[in-house]
């Protein structure tokens, strides 16, 4: 079938029927179960732990405390290894900790024969704490006398500060600040925006189990970066990387939350201490909320100053990011956000960026779909509407005047924009939503309607695909032919629900002409067998890993043509593949089938000729990047007295280059868009401001949208050709979430005239704002 086709998902049958096995389905029958004892304070120290009662409880095999684990710290971020010490991730985690850094931190672990026995015994563990005041915000934490990690005595994990002149950044170091003035300048007083911590709420909770096979520790886990979790686990235990084997079976969603190493080192250590017996840990939903990863809360102070013609003169931003208890990706995400702010719209005179990421006593924030960009796009796109409104400009025309174009050179990585579909996306969005006419219609309607208001709003984004050159962008693929012309494809990168296995099968099929149903993409990554990969993140699976599949498939194609040429005595340069056959370019005559070549070379037996098992393997390295673009147009109504937003329709138009599978691409947009609507309207993790205790870490009180809350969605693509992608394609995993929150906010602004500066825009926030604005009377 090949690319640019709606190939059926290669895993559709297994997933629909329930045949697909996930980590929890694979736990051996004789496994032991772990229950973690979580701290009941947010900040402080464990003074002592009494495990005597727990050890006597039924079924208990072991109680491990924070005083019994290796003393060294390890990295948890799911990043590739950096050989440059300056870019190395932060080592700040112990397997269990006596220094409590968030409410629910892991202080002890009980292992028992059943989950219930583990739970009952965990309740008998008595922990004595020295309690410190929780530091829940960057302002609380930075420069506080209470040091959360000795490696950062001022509790500031990282900073990135710069000014951009003539397209080139100059880096410096600014002081942490929460003042309204950016860079201490009275002419740069910004607008304050706030976004909350949120959780990915992937369907499959974090789960893993480990057992020993000889000297080797085998870890099954639902992790997005199997090779990295292998390295991090080996480092946590202080054993060779080759002594850990990570197996990732089918995975039920991750969105970046499963990029990091979470409980793999714990189960690995426990099996080691228990003579290799299998030990399993399955997070409850409550634990997944708190003990895995969240999206960073950002306080953003931003300035966009235009001249009278609507050209931006000055842009400035300060991001104070709440990194939570452990570093994970905090430094990288904050840096990505502050730089992205200067990539979409360009100011002529002055551009100043300041950013800080704080260690605080909240759960650890890290990667989640969009990697810091949903936050900054929200603030940036809200401000573009505010500025346009203030000057009486059309918000779209104002954006068009200032956004980058093809040929733009990214000031930070230096790559050049070679495909640019943003303008066409905007155009399409205007047409679909009937922008000008409907805006005018709604303006007229809202003049006379008091309780019901109508609004049409939009937002856009430019999202950098690939982490080059800060980090490597490489991927590997191996293709193994069988004697009947079928093949297995091994890829180190992973399927996590997005459809990557299908896209890779299509890419291999495109080159090898073998239909997808005669190819097997090995969905289980086993680090003992699978080629290396950095992991499923940064919207890189089709863009980067797709390049590895292409390269390996091309090698295999050339090998098949070469062997056919030798066997049939036909010049190789006159051969090509067509419908699983080797044919001559000149006459189209069939020389041999792929099956015949594979069978011949594998089994030919004349007593002396060497045989050959046809395989190919390639590592692909990308030294480039691109921008994916998109717009969201949101049509909504506001029930003013109830503060209720009723979404009528969302149009999403994306430029992700050339599409490999248009139907899967559309599905990706649906999923990301809905996640963005939740971010806009209802999702937020709440904590008790006094104790830091999580308040809503469950699916009743943490409001993800239900099917009933999702409006009609219309998705369109502007297909450009991106030369750095294997088939002109760019990334699409993260982009669909990005423009939703500002588009919803700008539509509410259009409907009511009330600007909001914080998400989620819940009925409570709206009622408070509408009362303050006089839209609701007593």
């Amino acid at each position, binding site marked *: 079938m090949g690319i640019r086709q709606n190939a059926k998902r290669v895993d559709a049958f297994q997933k629909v029927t329930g045949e697909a096995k996930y980590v929890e389905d694979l736990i051996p029958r004789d496994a032991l179960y772990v229950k973690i004892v979580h701290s009941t304070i947010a900040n402080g120290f464990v003074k002592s732990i009494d495990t005597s009662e727990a050890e006597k409880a039924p079924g208990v095999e072991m109680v491990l405390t924070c005083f019994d684990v290796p003393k060294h710290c390890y990295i948890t971020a799911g990043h590739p290894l950096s050989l440059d010490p300056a870019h190395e991730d932060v080592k700040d985690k112990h397997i269990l900790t006596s220094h409590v850094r968030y409410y629910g931190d892991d202080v002890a672990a009980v292992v028992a024969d059943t989950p219930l026995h583990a*739970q009952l015994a965990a309740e008998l563990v008595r922990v004595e704490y020295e309690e410190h005041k929780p530091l829940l915000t960057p302002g609380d934490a930075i420069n506080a006398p209470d040091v959360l990690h000795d490696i950062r005595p001022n509790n500031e994990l990282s900073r990135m500060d710069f000014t951009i002149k003539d397209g080139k950044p100059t880096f410096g170091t600014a002081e942490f600040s929460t003042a309204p003035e950016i860079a201490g300048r009275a002419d740069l007083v910004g607008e304050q925006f706030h976004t909350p911590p949120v959780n990915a709420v992937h369907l499959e909770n974090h789960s893993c189990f480990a057992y020993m096979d000889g000297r080797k520790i085998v870890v099954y886990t639902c992790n997005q970066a199997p090779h990295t979790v292998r390295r991090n686990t080996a480092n946590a235990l202080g054993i060779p990387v080759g002594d850990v084997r990570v197996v990732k079976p089918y995975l039920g969603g991750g969105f970046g939350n499963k990029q990091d190493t979470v409980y793999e080192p714990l189960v690995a250590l426990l099996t080691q201490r228990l003579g290799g017996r299998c030990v399993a840990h399955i997070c409850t939903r409550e634990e997944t909320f708190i003990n895995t990863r969240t999206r960073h809360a950002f306080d953003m102070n931003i300035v966009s100053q235009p001249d009278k013609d609507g050209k931006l003169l000055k842009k400035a931003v300060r991001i104070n990011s709440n990194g939570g208890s452990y570093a994970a990706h905090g430094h990288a995400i904050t840096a990505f956000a502050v730089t992205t702010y200067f990539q979409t719209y360009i100011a002529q005179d002055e551009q100043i960026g300041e950013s800080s990421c704080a260690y605080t006593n909240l759960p650890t924030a890290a990667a989640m779909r969009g990697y810091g960009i949903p936050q900054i796009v929200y603030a940036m796109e809200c401000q573009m509407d505010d500025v346009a409104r203030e000057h009486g400009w059309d918000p779209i025309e104002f954006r068009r005047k200032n956004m980058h174009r093809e040929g733009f050179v990214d000031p930070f990585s230096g790559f050049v924009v070679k495909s640019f579909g943003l303008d066409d996306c905007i155009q399409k969005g205007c047409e679909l939503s009937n922008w000008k006419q409907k805006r005018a219609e709604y303006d007229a309607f809202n003049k006379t309607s008091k309780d019901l208001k109508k609004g049409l709003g939009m937002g856009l984004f430019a999202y950098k695909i690939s982490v080059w050159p800060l980090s490597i962008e490489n991927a590997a693929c191996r293709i193994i032919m069988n004697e009947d012309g079928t093949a297995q494809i091994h890829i180190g990168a992973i399927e996590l629900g997005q459809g990557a296995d299908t896209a890779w099968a299509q890419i291999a099929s495109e080159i090898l002409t073998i239909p997808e149903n005669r190819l097997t993409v090995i969905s289980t990554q086993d680090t003992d067998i699978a080629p290396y990969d950095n992991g499923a993140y940064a919207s890189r699976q089709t863009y980067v890993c797709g390049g590895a599949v292409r390269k390996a498939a091309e090698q295999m194609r050339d090998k098949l043509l070469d062997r056919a040429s030798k066997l049939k005595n036909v010049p190789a340069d006159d051969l090509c593949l067509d419908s699983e056959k080797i044919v001559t370019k000149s006459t189209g005559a069939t020389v041999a089938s792929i099956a015949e070549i594979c069978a011949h070379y594998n089994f030919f037996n004349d007593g002396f000729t060497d045989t050959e098992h046809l395989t190919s393997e390639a590592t692909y390295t990308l030294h480039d990047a691109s921008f994916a673009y998109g717009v969201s147009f949101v049509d909504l109504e506001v029930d003013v*007295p109830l503060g209720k937003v009723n979404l009528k329709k969302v149009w999403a138009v994306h430029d992700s280059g050339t599409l490999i599978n248009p139907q899967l691409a559309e599905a990706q947009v649906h999923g990301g868009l809905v996640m963005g609507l939740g971010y806009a309207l209802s999702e937020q993790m709440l904590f008790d401001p006094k104790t830091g205790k999580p308040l809503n870490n469950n699916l009743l009180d943490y409001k993800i949208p*239900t099917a*009933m*809350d999702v409006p009609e969605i219309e998705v369109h693509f502007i297909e450009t050709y991106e030369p750095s992608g294997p088939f002109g394609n760019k990334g699409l995993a993260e982009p669909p979430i990005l423009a939703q929150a500002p588009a919803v906010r700008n539509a509410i602004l259009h409907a009511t005239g009330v600007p909001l500066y914080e998400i989620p825009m819940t*009925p*409570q926030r709206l009622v408070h704002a509408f009362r303050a604005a006089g839209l609701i009377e007593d």
Partner: protein
Amino acid sequence: MYDIRESLTAHTVEEALSLLSTHEGMIPAAGGTDILIKVRERKLKAVSLVSILGIPELNTISMGEDGSICIGPVCCFTRITEDPLIMENVPMLGEACRQIGSPQIRNVATIGGNICNGAVSADSVTPLYALDAILTLRSVKGERCIPIREFHTGPGKTVRNPDELLTMIRIPKESFAKHGSCYIKFGQRKAMEIATLGCAVNVSLSEDKTKICSAAIAYGVAAPTPVRCTETETLLTGMTIGPELFKTAREHVTAELQPRDSWRASKELRIQLIKELVVRALKSAVIRAGGEVD
């Protein structure tokens, strides 16, 4: 993960009552949708359950000889929303039950459980307050009937004794004949939601449909228990349908309620919802009773 010590099944009311009287701490379970959550959250430990789901006489909906509607407590919400007797006579109750949880939850969760669990947000309970439902409680010692308005004593607390079983929910004919009613649930999303506030209004009108003859206003999540606003109801009785009626309702209900400030919703939001929902529910109830509003 469920710390359940024993789980028994009763086949008759008598069997259930006998078990409740002899097994201290035993909890009657029907759909189990609240109990299992409490067990999972370790709020109930080493629990003993007796299933009453399979008792046929508790799973009926019928009209009594006096014209009242009699609902068995183990009727699940799906059954109630699909029952013609309910939808014809007390549609407000059916509509409220349809807004609970998800289809899966509504297929097992029961109205009796919703009442006895004592949650202030129970969606089926607020309408039953506005309908002046009568509850029948039985134990091996005997039977008593009490108005639902006297049943709840605080969040999660009721007057039901541990050995008592709710065996019948009766809605008197005079509560629904020639009445119009409406329940509005306010939640942050459109399904799988706990009410931030619920308001049920039940009215009857004068012969010419221009005046209020009787009004019942009930709220959920506006006080420690579901409540009626009796003083406002008295004020509304006899009033002509028009702006003054709605204004009076809006202005007076809050004085009878105790909305709280909590992380789930601010007091400011709750007060606004209290005022707004009563007007919307009252308008809808008046229309359903045959009246006209602007």
